[in-house]
């Protein structure tokens, strides 16, 4: 009887503690994307460096590619940029850029100054493709597999850890 008296409040406290532990450990900025495991939304946008050319997602079928959402006005993009440059140099995966809500001239200048890791960047001037991809915090990075299915989404700048573990495993999973 005595044991029940103190064990019930203790159990409630432990459950509460567990909820708080998990809840407070999470980043509220990271909203899980409903697009994972779904086909990448269709787009057909002009290329940043060759405005006469249009790139669509169907052009990339059969390839594993990253879609990195960036902009010249985006401060955190500078943080992940050296990593993207390294990744591009390693030729591990194709990297496409989505120049999100940006002035194409400013975008081109930014890439000239900071280096261009992208196979191609496409221009999403009004952010409509961004909405289709559920973009809300630039930079964001999507991993798309050979079937054109989104395998992973990184919200916020890439880090060496997230690149090696999350992106790396998603790419390996997609390609083999």
């Amino acid at each position, binding site marked *: 009887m005595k044991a029940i008296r103190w064990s019930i409040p203790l159990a409630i406290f432990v459950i509460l503690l567990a909820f708080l532990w998990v809840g407070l450990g999470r980043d509220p900025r990271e909203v*899980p994307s409903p697009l994972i495991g779904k086909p990448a939304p269709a787009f057909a946008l002009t290329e940043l460096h060759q405005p006469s050319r249009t790139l669509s997602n169907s052009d990339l079928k059969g390839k594993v590619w990253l879609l990195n959402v960036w902009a010249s006005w985006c401060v955190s993009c500078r943080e992940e940029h050296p990593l993207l440059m390294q990744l591009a140099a390693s030729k591990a995966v194709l990297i496409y850029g989505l120049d999100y809500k940006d002035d194409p001239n400013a975008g081109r200048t930014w890439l000239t100054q900071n280096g261009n890791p992208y196979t191609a960047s496409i221009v999403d001037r009004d952010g409509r493709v961004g909405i289709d991809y559920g973009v*809300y915090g630039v930079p964001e990075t999507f991993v798309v597999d050979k079937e054109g299915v989104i395998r992973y989404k990184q919200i916020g700048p890439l880090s060496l850890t997230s690149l090696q573990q999350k992106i790396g495993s998603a790419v390996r999973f997609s390609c083999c």
Partner: protein
Amino acid sequence: MLLIPVAFAAGATKMDARASDAALDARLKKLETELRCLVCQNQTLADSNADLAEDLRREVRSLAVQGKTDTEIKAYLVARYGDFVLYNPPLKGTTWLLWGAPFGLLVGGGALWWIVLRRRAARELPVSADDADAQARARAILDGAEPPAAS
């Protein structure tokens, strides 16, 4: 003569358009208060000045103008941003605890309260002769007729 009905008709459609605009505005305003801005997460789409909120308001309006219902517009946003855009999370497998917990706590708390009350009632013993004596003494002390025993 012919011009008058034409002018009247034109005026009428303009008035209709204005009235339906006001109705649309009211409908969108209500819808936007039920949607979350992803950038400043504790603001609704209606309240937020974030760039994305502006874009999403534009998108919601264009969908509404295309004749989409509120449910379809919400589904459009949920497909892109997840249930998080809804201020009222839907009742489903992953949210039953969220919706059920308040009722569970109410029932559990009520049950506990009932048990405690019953136990307390069971503990109250009938007044015995000793108790009657003690009560008489206590009353006498309170009335000042008898000094309290030094302990």
